[in-house]
């Protein structure tokens, strides 16, 4: 109950306000003033001789590492040209990445069909914005539910084709597009399944609790790489017509099941954080199990477990690179495949630096975004 009194108030004492000529009020630096902040920083860094020594040492190390890195990445790097011979500098050869950029993004997706990938990507961004970034509007629930139900099959249709579109087999998919596809569709399996499993594990019915616990513990205990390997290689050996199921689909399902178990545990944390009074109050109001769960328990539990869920999602994005062992060329895989090109031999550093930075940007972006959602949905006073 701490801080409940100041719930709606921003501590304005430390902030300064400025009224611009058009009359708008801008709050500057909600928090300590810049001058005070820098003074505090200086005190923290150089307060004692020991602090100062550590600061200088660390700064020296950073400089020692960063200067050659920046020189290699940017200053001495070659950006223009078309072939390996254009890279005469001592720095990175970004010409390589430029020449192979289409492949890094789309894999071997046919050039004249790549608009479909772009469109699917746009759709993904738009639906994410609709889901998380728009203020509540009338019937938002229904619109969101429709979007969640209809868009994923639509996305598969757009990417794979059929029904009027040219079929692009999944073996031609690759690069960033495949990484995003794997992440999104594995998450689409993992999030609902994870919630169901978590609720099942918290259920009062022993059979359901047992089944869910076994499922969660099984998938949590198996390494993802083993699951992908089994899904890709063992399944076709066991099933009579196993080879008929698409390789990528098998990988997505395998990945989704593993992540679902992790997500279930994250949601369970949220369920346990819920004070028992909430359920009791819902029961007192005469709500049954489903309405209690849907209206009272889940909204609060999901809010609490959002950071953990984001964490799992970020881990998932990076785990998609494990599909490399079954020769599905995701972003990392396509980078490695490009390295084999005799026209671009020895550009190992560039390929990995580029792929790594895309992963980093994606994961950092996700993490910042989730912080914003957390801040927006946070309970006042918490």
């Amino acid at each position, binding site marked *: 109950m701490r801080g409940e009194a100041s719930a709606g108030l921003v501590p304005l004492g430390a902030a300064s306000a400025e009224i611009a000529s058009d009359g708008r009020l801008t709050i500057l630096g909600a928090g300590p003033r810049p001058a005070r902040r820098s003074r505090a920083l200086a005190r923290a860094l150089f307060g004692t001789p020991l602090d100062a020594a550590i600061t200088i040492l660390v700064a020296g190390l950073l400089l020692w590492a960063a200067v050659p890195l920046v020189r290699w990445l940017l200053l001495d790097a070659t950006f223009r040209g078309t072939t390996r011979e254009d890279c005469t500098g001592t720095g990175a050869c970004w010409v390589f990445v430029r*020449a*192979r950029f*289409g*492949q890094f993004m789309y*894999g*071997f997706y046919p*050039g004249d069909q790549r608009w479909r990938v772009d469109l699917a990507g746009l759709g993904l961004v738009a639906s994410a914005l609709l889901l998380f970034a728009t203020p509540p509007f009338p019937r938002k629930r229904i619109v969101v539910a429709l979007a969640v139900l209809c868009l994923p099959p639509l996305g598969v249709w757009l990417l794979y084709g059929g029904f009027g579109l040219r079929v692009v*087999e999944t*073996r*031609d998919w690759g690069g960033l597009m495949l990484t995003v596809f794997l992440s999104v569709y594995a998450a689409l399996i993992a999030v609902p399944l994870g919630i169901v499993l978590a609720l099942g594990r918290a259920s009062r019915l022993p059979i359901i609790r047992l089944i869910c616990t076994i499922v969660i513990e099984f998938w949590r205990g198996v390494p993802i790489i083993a699951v992908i*390997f089994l899904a*890709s*290689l*063992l399944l*076709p*050996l066991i099933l009579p017509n*196993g*080879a008929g199921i698409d*390789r990528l689909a098998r990988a997505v399902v395998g990945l989704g099941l593993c992540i679902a178990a992790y997500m279930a545990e994250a949601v369970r944390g949220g369920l346990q954080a819920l004070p028992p009074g909430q359920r009791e109050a819902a029961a007192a109001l005469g709500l049954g199990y489903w309405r209690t769960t849907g209206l009272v328990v889940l909204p609060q539990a999901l809010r609490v477990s959002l950071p953990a869920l984001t964490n799992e999602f970020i881990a998932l994005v990076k785990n998609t690179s494990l599909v*490399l*062992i*079954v*020769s599905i*060329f995701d972003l990392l895989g396509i980078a*490695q*495949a*490009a*390295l*084999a*090109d*005799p*026209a671009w*031999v*020895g550009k190992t550093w560039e390929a990995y630096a580029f792929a790594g930075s895309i992963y980093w940007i994606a994961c950092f972006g996700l993490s910042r975004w989730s912080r914003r959602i957390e801040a927006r949905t946070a309970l006042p006073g918490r």
Partner: protein
Amino acid sequence: MSTRLILAGAFTLAAGAAGAQNLAPSPTLDAIKARGHLECGVHLGLPGFSFANDKGEWSGIDVDYCRSLAAALLGDATKVKFTPTSVQQRWPVLQSAQVDVLARNTTITFTRNATLGVNFQGINFYEGQTFLVRKGSAAAPKDLDGASVCVAAGSTEEKNASDWFKERNLKVSIINFQKNDDAIQAYDSGRCDAYTAGIGALAGQRIKLKDPANNIVMTETISNDPQGPTTRWGDERFQLVVRWVLNAQIAAELLGVTSKNVDQMKTSPNAEVRRLLGTEGGFGAMMGIPNDWAYQIVKQVGNYGESYERTVGMDSPLKLARGKNELWTKGGALFTPPFQ
């Protein structure tokens, strides 16, 4: 004894006659025809052997084999889809019928043949360990007496090389490095006279050197790692086709049939050429595939020599000499039984 011989002879005749009319069932061939393309397992990316360029077009000597098989079966060398396979995947994808045939840099060995449920249908590339040296310094491994060789410590290559030199009483100093990359860099900077690995790997390493033109890959090898198209057990008729498609590539070179002269060669005075190209003999029908199967291979893909030069040989960046991969009539080890 004589009764047995007669019986055996009669049986052979009967089997031959029966074979001409009704062929042994081949689920793999039926499946390939039904789906309209061949599924071929290849290496993830090894220039010269199987490699997809930035447009996703595959090339390489193994890829050429797959195209030849597609040309023979379906009359169209482009009707093949490639499944890149990692080291871990290569056997399971073949065993579980995700690919029809595996044409991937993989050494043929007894234990693999005997225990993995796979059959090797011939050799399309004699891989083997050899040396990368500076031009003019040494021509064959035995010339390396007194030289120094850079290797990665603890690798198979290190053991092979030191055993080989010891056995022949050659004084070669082996300089160990932690990683292959370090060893090749040390070679490039002149710390040693040679670097050792498999032919295919060396050919790829050579073009990464500062001055590739000044370095050569020896053609004589100190180990024996043959590679070739691989099928799973069962379906003898498909195995037959896989084996003879490779033989046809080799025979075409032997008989002087190239993609340029193949049309004239159809009426060659040489009966074996005519049988190969399907002008007579009906060899395709005996396997249950079109009679012009070998004609299509040579016309669309070329004979073995053409394929070799285009992918790993002198017309390619790798610039590998034929070496052991030359016809047996010209001092190599590449062999085909006759088309009779």
